[in-house]
């Protein structure tokens, strides 16, 4: 069965974007507590985001309050301070780099609230929660505390596990772009062990997803990951689709549409690609979050996704 899904992030609706700029300037403070007005604005924005995803099988909350790409969850952790701006992989986007200065502790999970709001507004689609993976989040950070990378990754994973346990969603997507972008093989055993813990802690079906990178470099490792689905970006490297086919991985979140460019994909070609995978367990999606596109183009990509429903 082919399901259509939003990947994760979504362009902020105008009303929310304008409100956030007017109220908080360039960036809200790390310790900011949402006001009543913030909450009302988020409800209005989320309604629009849910409406935009109408017709998809699996929808997300659009990560509308995530100020930092993937690093948002760490902002409130004990032992972590948010540092200067760093480029987010090969994009013209930046995040505040978390600096680990002490023992990490996640005292207050932050992802549940927006997910609950999404469920309240959801007209009947399946819900997907998105969370950064421990390997990627650790590598996006600067570690001044833990003795070695394995220890740091485990500490980040423990904090993420607390988030995951609170997420009541049909699907939980763990974003690990680094697995394909720049995998350190010496660390994979540690990473895989932590991913097993996280997928076990999840209440819904799990997706461990890669993006931005070349699949050739990590396909053997991806075959070892115990998740319900493996996410693959078939856009950033043309060879990725072929590598996927040859790998024999069948349960796939297939990123066929480019969320980093406005050009529209050929529906017939995408249907062929889905068919050639010869699998009953495919989720088709964009290669990464739609927030890299302005809303009007994100809507066009969603229109294409709808055409792949049940392909």
């Amino acid at each position, binding site marked *: 069965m082919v399901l259509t899904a939003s990947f994760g992030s979504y362009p902020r609706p105008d009303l929310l*974007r304008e409100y*956030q*700029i007017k109220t908080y300037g*360039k*960036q809200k403070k790390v310790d900011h507590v949402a006001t009543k007005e913030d909450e009302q604005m988020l409800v209005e924005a989320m309604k629009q985001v849910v409406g935009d995803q109408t017709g998809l099988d699996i929808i997300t909350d659009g990560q509308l309050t995530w*100020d930092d790409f993937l690093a948002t969850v760490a902002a409130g952790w004990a032992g972590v301070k948010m540092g200067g701006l760093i480029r987010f992989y090969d994009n013209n*986007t930046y995040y505040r780099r978390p600096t680990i200065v002490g023992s990490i502790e996640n005292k207050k999970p932050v992802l549940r609230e927006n997910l609950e709001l999404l469920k309240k507004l959801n007209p009947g689609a399946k819900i997907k929660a998105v969370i950064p993976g421990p390997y990627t989040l650790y590598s996006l950070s600067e570690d001044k505390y833990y003795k070695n990378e394995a220890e740091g990754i485990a500490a980040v994973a423990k904090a993420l596990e607390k988030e995951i346990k609170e997420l009541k969603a049909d699907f939980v997507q763990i974003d690990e772009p680094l697995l394909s972008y720049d995998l350190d093989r010496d660390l994979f055993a540690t990473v895989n062990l932590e991913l097993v813990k996280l997928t076990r802690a999840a209440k819904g079906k799990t997706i461990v997803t890669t993006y931005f990178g070349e699949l050739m470099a990590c396909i053997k490792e991806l075959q070892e990951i115990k998740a319900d689905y493996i996410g693959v970006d078939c856009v950033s490297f043309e060879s990725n689709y072929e590598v996927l086919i040859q790998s024999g991985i069948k349960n796939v979140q297939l990123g066929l549409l480019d969320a980093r460019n406005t*050009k529209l994909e050929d529906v017939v070609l995408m249907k062929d690609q889905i068919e050639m995978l010869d699998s009953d367990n495919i989720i088709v999606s964009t290669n990464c979050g739609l927030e890299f596109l*302005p809303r009007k183009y994100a809507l066009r990509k969603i229109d294409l996704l709808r055409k792949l429903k049940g392909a």
Partner: protein
Amino acid sequence: MAKKILTTTVVGSHPRNPKVVEAARLLKECRIKKAEYDKLVDEATRICIDDQVRAGIDIIADGEQGREDMQVFFAERLGGFQEGDWVRIWGNNYFRKPVVADRIKFKGPMTLDDWKFAEKYSKESQKKFKRSGVLMKQMFTGPYTMADWSFYESHSSRRDLTLDLAEALAKEAKALDKAGCPYIQIDEPALCTHPGEEEMMLEAEAIEIITKRLKAYTAIHICYGDFDMLFPYALEFDADLIDLEFANNNFRTLDVLRKYDFTKDLGFGVVDVHKKEVESVAQVKKNIMLALDFLKPEQVYPKPDCGLKLLPDENTAYLKLKAIGEAVKELREEL
């Protein structure tokens, strides 16, 4: 251009004058006339020029007061682009990322009038502050960055778009060169985004399209990235000077440069544009000396890390430039 030691320069932008920012907003809403906006840009440009001249800078710029940002300004003036829409860069900061929907067409010089205005005024400014020999440069965004920061629908690849843009920007450079602009700078902040030899070779090809046969001194400004991937390729770029940030990364980039025989001139970032605290003259002198450890003083062009637009106000920008000007004045006497 006469070669002197420790020629001081700037990257290009100044903090955008609040009156210009407001006027730009009103202009977009059709609430003021273009002439009113232009007048405010001219006034703000004069202030930028005066600040650079009195700070002791040798090669100055117009402060880019008329540019909304370094991408949109050019996208609005080249054929092939469609107006973009908001895309988030970080926090609550967005830019209107343009869409390339057709082959690129050069419709006419985009920065020439601004350069002519600034160059003419710089002569008055030099008289006012009793200086001479100050040169006016001009900057434009490079083809690699223009391509990387755009969506594209009509080109077969980013490479195709980059080279198409290079052909158009070569006409811009030629127009400036013909008018007598002595220093042309190509801004390529996106260059360190995508690692790999192929990317550097693409940039080399694109730069050569623009700079070949120019009489002007040429520079490439690159910032915020992994400079390890830039070398040794950048040493082969067809430009006289490579302009980089150093202060922001605590001069780690020098370790990269030391690995090679650095044959070009170096735009040497000695003040941090991300910090509002103004560096002391002593600190700037110390910073400059770090490059003189392995480069000749004729090769080193002290300047801020990047454009000054990120600083909170004009005065902070002026004080940072003044620290550079005074540091170089003292060093020229001491060396």
